[in-house]
């Protein structure tokens, strides 16, 4: 077993350099296929689980227009899931499909961030989570449009169009709700305080990220922090919200150690595939 760093690291590129061998510029993904598969699961699972959470609002939103908009975001994310998990299945090469990956893996095989599996809370908390994720998703996808793997670049370019709109919208809503009434500000501040430490998982790299960064497939997540701050902080300021000063980050989602909530999501989401194995729908 090579001594790839398996600790969480704030600087994957640095570690990649120390790792020697592959360097930071290998143009083509002869990269570790396992790491590539892992990375694709992370992309797909974030979209799947967040899309699932958002879809829970369908029919229950605070206003018809918002109900429709939230469903739209969910739809985009499920569409992106199919692309990422489709590519993951192809890269894995074991004859599994995107649906097999979505519906037949257990909790420990899911690679989404903890943030996206957390319960919706009120509509404001859902929007705050969306905003924190959108800002990350946006910069990540933007970087991925330059991926050394053209399939990744293509999915990223398509997703980026959708996510630019998600970010624009969630930023507007966070500003409006922070600025709105005393109650709405209180709710948004509570949502931000509650989610901040989960959001910071986004910037923790690990061995998979090191391999991806080294092969030019995906950026070092820590490297996205500055861009994220530049997007997020002015919005929070305009929303009159205080940025939590904690640097603590919950972690584990990317490696498959989840919160208790994911099991319930899967129990619901996978019910039919589990109860009627092999049936076509």
């Amino acid at each position, binding site marked *: 077993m090579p001594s790839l760093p398996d600790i969480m690291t704030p600087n994957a590129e640095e570690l990649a350099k120390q790792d020697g061998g592959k360097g930071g510029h290998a143009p083509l993904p002869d990269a570790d296929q396992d790491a590539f598969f892992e990375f694709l699961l992370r992309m797909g699972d974030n979209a*799947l689980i967040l899309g*699932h959470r958002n*879809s*829970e609002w*369908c*029919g*229950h*939103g*605070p*206003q*018809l*227009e*918002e*109900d*429709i908009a939230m*469903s*739209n975001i*969910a*739809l985009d994310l*499920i*569409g992106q*899931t*199919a692309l990422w*998990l489709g590519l993951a299945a192809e890269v894995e090469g074991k004859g599994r499909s*995107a*649906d097999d990956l*979505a*519906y037949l893996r257990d909790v420990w095989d899911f690679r989404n961030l903890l943030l996206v599996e957390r319960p919706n809370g*009120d*509509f*404001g908390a859902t929007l705050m989570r969306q905003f924190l994720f959108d800002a990350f998703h946006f910069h990540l996808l933007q970087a991925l449009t330059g991926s050394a793997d053209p399939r990744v670049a293509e999915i990223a370019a398509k997703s980026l169009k959708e996510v630019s709109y998600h970010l624009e919208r969630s930023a507007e809503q966070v*500003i*409006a*709700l922070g*600025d*709105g*009434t005393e*109650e*709405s500000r209180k*709710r948004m501040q509570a949502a931000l305080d509650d989610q901040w430490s989960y959001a910071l998982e986004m910037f923790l790299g690990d061995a998979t990220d090191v391999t991806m960064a080294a092969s030019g497939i995906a950026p070092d997540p820590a490297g996205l922090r500055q861009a994220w701050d530049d997007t997020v902080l002015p919005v929070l300021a305009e929303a009159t919200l205080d940025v939590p000063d904690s640097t603590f980050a919950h972690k584990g989602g990317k490696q498959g150690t989840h919160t208790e909530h994911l099991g319930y999501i899967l129990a*619901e*989401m996978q*019910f*039919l*595939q589990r109860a*009627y194995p*092999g*049936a*076509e*729908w």
Partner: protein
Amino acid sequence: MYAQLVKSEGTSREDMSPEEIAFQGRIDRNEKIEPKEWMPEGYRKTLIRQIGQHAHSEIVGQLPEGNWITRAPTLERKQILLAKVQDEAGHGLYLYCAAETLGVSRDELLERLHSGDMKYSSIFNYPTLTWADMGAVGWLVDGAAIMNQVPLQRTSYGPYSRAMIRICKEESFHQRQGYAIMMKMANGTPAQKKMAQDALNRLWYPSLMMFGPSDKDSVHSAQSMAWKIKMNTNDELRQKFVDQTVPQAEYLGLTVPDPDLKWNEEKGGYDFSEPDWDEFYQVLKGNGPCNKERLGARVKAWEDGAWYRDAMVAHAKKKASRRPVAAE
């Protein structure tokens, strides 16, 4: 489903004012009535009730299918279902807008829904128990809605007619998607086939109820038909629906749960059993299997969202007051 139980408030011909006679003349010539034009108060009120109930049916109708979004069995099915339920919200939006042209706000209509003063289609008080219900609802419920709505594209009130034209396009999409699910299920494993038959068994009669009580018991039709707010009688539409649907069920290899169903050569249509009208009136009274859940979910969404809507209004006001006054 929408026109059938709306009590119209008209005046008998002999009591009509000259204005009313002229108005009726325009309707008889198939002219569209537009929002700013004069209309009898009864016409306006009847339309508000009908369009409002139609709008409510769209948004309450999100719930039975919304019930399966998080359990849809594949990524593609999840997308299709989500898009469908989202369309229904969109239909609600067009219809509330059409109602607003008659001088009633969306909030006011929602208030009347929440208080129980206004109804929505009885079909949505039935539960969706298995995935096959996602097929059967699309096939039967959207199918019955289309049957009701296609003639309403020609209704006399312009904004309503235009909303119907937009909506009908999407409804026929929904029906085809529903039927596609039924095809999968009916040709699937024995368990899936059983699910499909069970869904048809449960939803057949409630679907027939969507056309309203039999013409002989439906007292409010005449005025609405004269105003072209209602275009066909309940029994006409129900017959058309049965005639269209029975061959579709046969093609699926499923059995319509009516032992007395048979083709009547003479009338060129099927003879079929009436639904249980006692059950229908019980559902209308609030005693259907899901009345409390459905209305409860709508009220909860509205109340839980109050702070959100208030904040949006407050922010918009602050923004407007912060905006520097433009120099003229």
